[in-house]
């Protein structure tokens, strides 16, 4: 009886926990990728089309690689997500932002850059991947302790 009750509680616990686990999505494949190409594949966008409608606002030269401000906006109609990929970082994918109805495809964030690198901004629009690239020079790298 007690055993059954415990089993029941365990099952209930799993049912309750599962929706939370599902909410906290984490793309292990894309974030674990060690090259930009693998990160793009992990995001389901191995060969994005270059686009001038993705606007990247970032410094040409970042003095401190520990805090590099990057502002990105997609003017491609129907943009549903934006990802920031830092080519030469040990793990290039810095973040992926999904925009639902009600949000503009815009984000500003601070990232760490180990060295001078191309930064690729990927936008998904109508299920199709687009990309813009911008080089940011780093004077002092920001990935050490």
């Amino acid at each position, binding site marked *: 009886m007690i055993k059954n009750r415990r089993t029941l509680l365990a099952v209930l616990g799993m049912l309750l926990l599962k929706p939370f686990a599902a*909410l*906290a*999505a*984490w*793309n292990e494949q894309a*974030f674990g990728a060690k090259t930009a190409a693998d990160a793009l594949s992990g995001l389901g966008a191995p060969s994005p089309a270059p686009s001038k409608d993705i606007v990247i606002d970032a410094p040409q030269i970042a003095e401190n690689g*520990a*805090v*590099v401000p990057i*502002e990105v906006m997609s003017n491609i109609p129907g943009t549903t997500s934006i990802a920031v990929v*830092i080519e030469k*970082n*040990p*793990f290039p*994918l*810095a*973040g*992926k*932002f*999904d*925009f*639902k*109805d*009600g*949000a*503009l495809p*815009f*984000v*500003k*964030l*601070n*990232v*760490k*850059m180990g060295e001078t690198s191309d930064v690729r901004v990927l936008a998904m629009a109508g299920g199709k991947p687009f990309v813009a690239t911008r080089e940011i020079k780093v004077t002092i790298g*920001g*990935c*050490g*302790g």
Partner: protein
Amino acid sequence: MAGPMKMRATLAGGNTEVRVLMSHPMTTAQMKEGLHHIRNVVVKQNGKTVVEAEISQAVSRNPVFSFRLKGGAKGDKIEVSWLDNKGESNKIETAVA
């Protein structure tokens, strides 16, 4: 340790501009503290999810993000929450000023 959050939500150019600061070490695997970073960020407008993000250890310590929401009005409730790779979480709610 994860500390308090700060947030400001204002109307600008017909849209809602959300600026949020999260106190978090955001350490990488190469650092002596080991890998400890926020993984998930969710932005809600009046209870409805508008932005869902996954972020890596490449985001700077004490992350600051800006988001833009379409339209909006004074008094709208904006909530931002995060969850890290160790299961710690935090959230903040504010009304659009």
